[in-house]
């Protein structure tokens, strides 16, 4: 029911919005620009950045055989340079035609090609692999596509971003388009970009995915948190990536 509503809004708004961006490409700022210098320094410290524990684990998992076929990621990918890969997600999966994020792509490989169990969201293993792959794109600009089959998902994502929700009746746009740079209690509101995820968030005291961060925002405005892997999150992730086009990947980010 909810998806029908979003699709209807998307259709109606699609013509009106066109390719209008609330934040111009030249004005894009990563979340790290809104944090204190201490957190920025920690993120840039390749040794002490806690997220690097997961990146290192991801590197080991990349080479570990798993599943019925006893294949590792490295078995197929060999020494393939994964640079740019994370920066192109979410994208339409050629085989199935579905929109898939990096976590989904890793699980498709595991289930489809390795005969291995898919990994749960927020499991150490999935976070590690996602962080490792995204780290290969460090500094690469986000370059997702919204043409072809992705277009419909983009429209739903955009509608979702502008939809008021929760007890506070706020949409993502209210804070991250209209009030970024301003204070919310003692914190500065960021532009809400996905370029540093998976990220180590101090509030979680651990690494977390972009979807976890979206859920955190939803709970913050007292809205219902959808289950991990929900289509709405995927569509929203695509919209967020489009919105952040050109911002360099910073994974693993260190955030408040």
């Amino acid at each position, binding site marked *: 029911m909810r998806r029908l509503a979003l699709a209807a809004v998307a259709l109606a708004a699609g013509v009106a919005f066109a390719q209008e961006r609330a934040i111009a490409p030249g004005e894009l700022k990563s979340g790290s620009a809104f*944090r*204190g210098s*201490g*957190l920025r320094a*920690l993120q840039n410290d390749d040794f002490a950045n806690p997220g690097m524990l997961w990146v290192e684990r991801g590197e080991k998992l990349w080479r570990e055989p798993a599943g019925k076929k006893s294949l590792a990621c490295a078995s197929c990918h060999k020494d393939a340079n994964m640079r740019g890969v994370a920066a192109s997600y979410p994208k339409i999966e050629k085989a199935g035609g579905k929109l898939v994020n990096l976590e989904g792509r890793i699980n498709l490989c595991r289930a489809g090609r390795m005969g291995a169990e898919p990994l749960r969201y927020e499991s150490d293993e999935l976070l590690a692999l996602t962080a490792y792959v995204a780290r290969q794109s460090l500094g690469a600009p986000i370059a997702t596509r919204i043409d072809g089959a992705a277009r419909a998902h983009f429209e739903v994502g955009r509608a979702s971003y502008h939809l008021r929700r929760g007890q506070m009746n706020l949409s993502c746009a209210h804070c991250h388009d209209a009030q970024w740079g301003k204070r*919310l*209690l*003692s*914190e500065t509101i960021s532009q809400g970009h996905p370029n540093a995820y998976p990220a180590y968030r*101090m*509030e*979680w*005291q651990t690494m*977390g995915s972009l979807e*976890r*961060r979206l*859920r*955190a*925002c939803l*709970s*913050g*405005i*007292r809205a219902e*948190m959808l289950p991990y892997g929900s289509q709405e999150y995927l569509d929203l992730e695509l919209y967020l990536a489009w919105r952040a086009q050109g911002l360099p990947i910073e994974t693993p980010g260190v955030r*408040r």
Partner: protein
Amino acid sequence: MKRRDFLAGAAGALAFPGAALAQVDPPDQLVRALTNGAPVRKGKVTLVLPQLADNGNSVPIRITVDSPMTAADHVKSIHLYSERNPVPNMANFYLGPRAGKAEIDSRVRLAGSQRVTAVAKLSDGSFWYDAAPIVVTLSACLDES
């Protein structure tokens, strides 16, 4: 008092946490297990903390003790205390002449705005301290993710 003046005053007090928490020696009960009542003097130790924590779950600290770190004159241990955490003795670091330099970096949890104290025990049995205030605020949004 007008609401505006009250708020301005409150904001002023928050703006200078250092002034609000005057420098006093660590309370005896906090450090007694370590010092057994021996005097704890201000000096030799430098404790560096940010004035405002990004998040109370992880605050960077650096404790440096001015010492030649020779066999005859060195820091035996450094003890970190919180006046507000449920566990006041946050950590103890044991050094010795093989350290070469008495400087420790770590990241700590702080349960709210408070003064943090670092006490060093030297090889001659003397105790020295430094204390620093920090403002720790709660997260703006509830996170139940």
